[in-house]
């Protein structure tokens, strides 16, 4: 019979490589794109592949990659969080304020993580139990966090941070600590989402809520849990973000939330939920800094960075849409 798409795919399943690519198609695509950029640009200017630049490219967006881990889980569930940028700003300021007030550094690192967990858990409750769409809740939360941050800090930069607080500047074997955080957290989250029953439940709820209920999963509880977890990653990302330099601004990069969401989506998370891994989003975050660095190396005005990103988002999601059509 020829009218079922499954027939066309089945004979390939014998090949382990193909199986891998099929399961991690988007991740492979991002990795390949990254390699293409690296090869092309380093041919034009070998300095691009200098150890320092590699370090910068990998470390530069590490906090985005960490935040994208949580965002990936949120999107897997079929939700979204547009407040993540503002949240990172707030949590970084909390960390900095504690640090200059002389609290022990572990308190300064831990408290923002806990606050992040708390805030996102509240968002999760509003989404799961009050059934307000996540985009509406987080749209409101953005305003509250942004306004709150300015009101509290009065816009003053936090400087004179104690050196031992600046965790993002620690290096091990010449590699900055954010790289370790990014890699370890990505792998930990990836493994957890594959091997922990709770992690698998995220895929189940994202793929088919009703079916998930019949196998004993409670989607509401899970949603709150995942939002809380997302808050934890936001907290870690905020600490990495805030300790990268000697001062903490009370503003975050423009459209930080969109960058994080984009990393997740380009990394292969299906916005409808149910499919994707965290490896792709981390690769995508590195990919962004590689592109942004490449623009400087190629003397392309940064104006075009956004246009490039836009085309990339469309291309990847288009690919995802086409693949999905093949499956169903």
């Amino acid at each position, binding site marked *: 019979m020829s009218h079922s798409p499954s027939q066309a*795919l089945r004979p390939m399943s014998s090949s382990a490589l193909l199986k891998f690519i099929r399961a991690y198609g988007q991740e492979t695509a991002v990795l390949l794109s990254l390699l293409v950029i690296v090869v092309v640009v380093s041919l034009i200017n070998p300095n691009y592949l200098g150890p320092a630049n590699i370090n910068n490219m990998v470390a530069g967006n590490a906090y985005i990659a960490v935040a994208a881990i949580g965002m990936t889980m949120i999107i897997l569930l079929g939700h979204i969080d547009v407040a993540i940028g503002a949240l990172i700003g707030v949590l970084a300021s909390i960390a900095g304020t504690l640090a200059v007030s002389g609290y022990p550094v572990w308190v300064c690192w831990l408290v923002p993580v806990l606050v992040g967990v708390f805030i996102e858990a509240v968002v999760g409750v509003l989404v799961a139990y009050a059934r307000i769409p996540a985009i509406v809740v987080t749209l409101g939360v953005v305003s509250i966090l942004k306004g709150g941050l300015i009101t509290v800090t009065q816009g003053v930069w936090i400087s004179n941070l104690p050196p031992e607080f600046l965790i993002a500047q620690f290096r091990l074997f010449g590699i900055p600590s954010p790289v370790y955080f990014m890699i370890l957290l990505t792998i930990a989250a990836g493994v957890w989402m594959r091997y922990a*029953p709770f992690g698998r439940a995220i*895929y189940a709820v994202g793929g088919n809520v009703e079916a998930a209920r019949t*196998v004993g999963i409670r989607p509401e509880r899970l949603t709150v849990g995942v939002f809380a977890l997302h808050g934890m990653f936001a907290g870690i990302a905020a600490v990495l973000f805030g300790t990268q330099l000697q001062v903490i601004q009370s503003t975050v990069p423009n459209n930080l939330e969109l960058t994080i969401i984009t990393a997740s989506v380009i990394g292969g998370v299906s916005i409808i939920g149910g499919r994707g891994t965290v490896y792709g989003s981390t690769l995508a975050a590195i990919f962004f800094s590689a592109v942004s660095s490449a623009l400087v190396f190629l003397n392309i005005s940064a104006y075009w960075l956004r246009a490039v990103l836009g085309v990339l988002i469309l291309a990847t999601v288009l690919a995802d849409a086409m693949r999905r059509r093949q499956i169903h």
Partner: protein
Amino acid sequence: MTCLLELSNISKSFASVRVLTGVNFDVRPGEVHALMGENGAGKSTMIKIVAGVLTPSGGEMRVNGEAVQFSSPKEANARGIATVYQEMLLFPDLTVAENIFLGHAPRGSVGHIDWRSMRAKARVLLDSLDSPDLDVDAVVGTLSVANRQRVEIAKALSQDARIVIMDEPTAALAETDAKRLLDIVRRLRDRGVGIIYVSHRMAEIFAIADRITVLRDGVMIGTRNRDEVDQPTLVSMMVGRDIAQLYPKAEVTLGDVLLETRDLCCNERVRNVSLSVRAGEIVGIAGLIGAGRTELALTMFGITPATAGEIRIGGEAVTIRSPREARDLGIAYIPEDRGRQGLVKAQTIRENIIHPILDRISRYFLVSLRKERSLAVQSIKQLSIRTWGADQIAGQLSGGNQQKVVVAKWLGTKPRILIMDEPTRGIDVGAKAEIYTLMGELARDGIAIIMISSELPEVLGMSDRIMVMNEGKLVAEIPRAEATLESVGAAMTHSARHQEIER
């Protein structure tokens, strides 16, 4: 012998509507107990109560002699009850192995999911179901219907189920796959599993069931051993009256041929279908789910335009590329999935009824609210839709009344050709009778009706002619006089091409 499961005097009401009244039912080990009844008879409600999805309003349920009350499917699972749902509650993006074990995967030393052992166990399970061809790492979304069914069954068995509920498991299967499935059911039975088996297929029931229970209108009509009953008895138990009474087929003088197709194709799903319908004629189209009946209707209605062949209306060749064009040619289509395709449930009756004729009842693009209301009021009266008014939300109506709204909205287009896809699915007997009467009246008014239905009694009762589809092709045409359950049923399941769909 103790029963695995015993229901005594179980009732269930939704709001004030009683859907089950005093049902007694039991399942013994190593037995296939078939559950029969027309749509809306209360079968699914009963199944859901056993599966722990619904809690009964009254009565008692015992598992292995112990009284139980389930508040979630998980609790039913823990008692050894597993369900193979008709709609197949699977996760399309996950693999076969994971679908089977989700929620109770084998754990490793640190509580992690042991993928290796999970895949091995899934392999063993599938082999025991005689499905060695099914790859445990395949993504379920890419599987055929038959294979998904096997995954569902494996999932049910993965928890050592002692009682397995199967809700119309063969509804979507071709003959060979259905036979294979029956083999699997027998294997389970031989292992001592008790099986509640819901099906419409008479032949199947007689091939596999040990006992048969019939429900009608939420009431248990009776339980019989297989060898105590024959088909006509079962049918009259299910229908509750003479077929002639339920299906008021009036004699109508047939007019000219209104709709004709010649070698109509739509990709692989509809293959070279040639048929014709005359004014006043009711043509029934029978076939299995997936046989291409709905696809044929969608092609004639312009949702999936024809890729080859010809459609003639009143003798003239036409092209139909959209439902709007179909409507303008006098074709109306009552879709099979009322909630998804037929109605905007969140809107009022009034709004729904004018959806297909927005352009006709508006002037300068402004909707005539007066005409809208009068049309709605008139339709409510004509089809005796039970509602408090034209402004009631369609989704709040009962299934039968929702179906009448769908019929009303399409009658509003003044069709000459009416295609009805499963026109009585999920509605109560009273509403069914009304729909049948209406069909008779429409036929008398000279409308050509094509009725697609999986309920053979209905097809037999209402049609002037019966067409049988199989794998996208028209395989048989049987006049009313010669049509019997057997003849039509055989044509339906007999695969035109004796090839296995799965390798």
